[in-house]
């Protein structure tokens, strides 16, 4: 692989709050086109790891790079999509339509006065089409269901044609049917559009079935697995002890 295909590189990254070290000497690399699940028990540094990659948190030592550039100097933010954990904890009465919400992300592509031109409008339409929400463009965001809002936020990142999308627990509070649709959409973004995906999740079983790679966060360390050889039951035993078994839901 060439250097160009490195999307994310963490080199000897250590991070903690006060005297508690959450991550110690973490080394981690994501290549173009991969679909990573970051898993780990509650309170492990899953979201922290994501925020470090995005430069929202600064490591105590070590470096995080995006596309080979240290994250502090990285400027091509339109290549990065980010769907934070609390994205749907917004004020449901917020006066914004789906279209306004999705258009907002085009801001770095607009001129000084931030006018929308035909090209921008087309981008918004295309993004809504990919996630299947074009019929809802004029709806207020608060009127949509959790799964629909989720797709709008994905469309919001898609308007910039990102090369990588980061998602923090995207399926919390989303019903099972929407989860299935969500993974279908992820497959489309990953396989057809070649977008690298990084997803934090606590749902180890499902993640191991859908992703290409898995990073397990726990006890200051990071363990990396190929999704094909990853055994979620063994993993759970290793962190919770022998008595835990993964419960497979039959929906």
């Amino acid at each position, binding site marked *: 692989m060439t250097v160009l295909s490195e999307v994310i590189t963490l080199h000897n990254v250590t991070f903690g709050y006060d005297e508690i070290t959450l991550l110690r000497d973490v080394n981690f690399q994501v290549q173009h086109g991969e679909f990573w699940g970051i898993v780990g028990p509650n309170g492990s540094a899953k979201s922290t790891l994501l925020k470090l990659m995005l430069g929202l948190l600064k490591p105590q030592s070590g470096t995080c790079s995006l596309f080979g550039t240290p994250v502090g100097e990285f400027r091509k933010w339109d290549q990065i999509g980010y769907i*934070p954990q609390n*994205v749907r904890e917004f004020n449901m009465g917020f*006066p914004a*339509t789906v279209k*306004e919400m999705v258009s907002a992300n085009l801001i770095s592509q*607009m001129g000084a006065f931030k006018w929308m031109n035909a090209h921008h409008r087309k981008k918004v339409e295309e993004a809504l089409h990919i996630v299947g929400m074009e019929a809802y463009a004029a709806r207020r965001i608060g009127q949509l269901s959790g799964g629909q809002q989720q797709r709008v936020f994905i469309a919001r990142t898609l308007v910039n044609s990102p090369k990588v999308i980061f998602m923090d627990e995207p399926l919390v509070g989303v019903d099972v049917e929407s989860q299935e649709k969500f993974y279908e959409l992820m497959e489309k973004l990953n396989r057809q559009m070649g977008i690298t995906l990084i997803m934090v999740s606590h749902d180890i079983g499902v993640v191991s079935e859908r992703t290409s790679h898995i990073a397990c966060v726990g006890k200051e360390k990071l363990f990396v697995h190929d999704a094909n050889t990853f055994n979620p039951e063994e993993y759970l035993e290793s962190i919770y002890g022998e008595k835990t078994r993964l419960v497979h839901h039959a929906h």
Partner: protein
Amino acid sequence: MPEILQYGFMQRAFLAGVVVALICPAIGIFLTLRRLSMIGDTLSHVALAGVAGGILLNFYPIYMALILTLLASFGIELLRKEFHQYAEISLAVVLSFGIGLATILISLGGAGAQVFSYLFGSVTLVTSRDMLSILILGAIIMATVLFYYRQLFYMAFDETAARLAGVPVKRINMIFTILVAVTISISMRIVGILMVSSLMVIPVATSLQLKKSFLVTFIASLCFGLISVLAGLTISFYASLAPGGTIVMTSVGILIIVAAIQRLMSN
């Protein structure tokens, strides 16, 4: 020409009133959506100290208020970092400081009557100098809000996402804080210090009732502000009442009517 517009002071009051009616909701919508409407209240208490100080030192009260509210808004930012777990504390501290200083300054000199006109707003006392300051600064505020409209919208919804989308959040927060301070300092002449923050919040609360897009909500809040100020000034003239009171009561009246209509239509 109707009688009300034959007086020079009423022409000045209406002109200045229109500007205030537009800038207060234009700033207020972003304050309200970010749940920062208390900042308006806090800075207006500081503006009172500025007015009292200005009268005492024989320095133009609006500019004195402007200087103090600007200093106070930076003070709030500093204190916010100090008490980052209790953001409201920084507002409470600055508000207390403002009202305490104002009380001392007012009791120092015999400026009572003049301070009164700033507390409740005034129609007859709007000078040409006031009007000019309001027109120029108001135009700058409106132009800045429109220029940063998209950025402010995005930041109001989700500051982290806005930052990642390339919005210079820190710089715009700073600019916005300055806009709030200037808006309060120039609006108090018409609506009064005690009611500036009402004019920032109530027209916005009314337009939120419409449950429309952000653009419609924004424009509607300016319209509701405009109706409140024009009607309030007219009532103030004919009934010889302080304009602050009539403007705010009109805006509350509109809010109740719009909310009632919305309720009826949804049933």
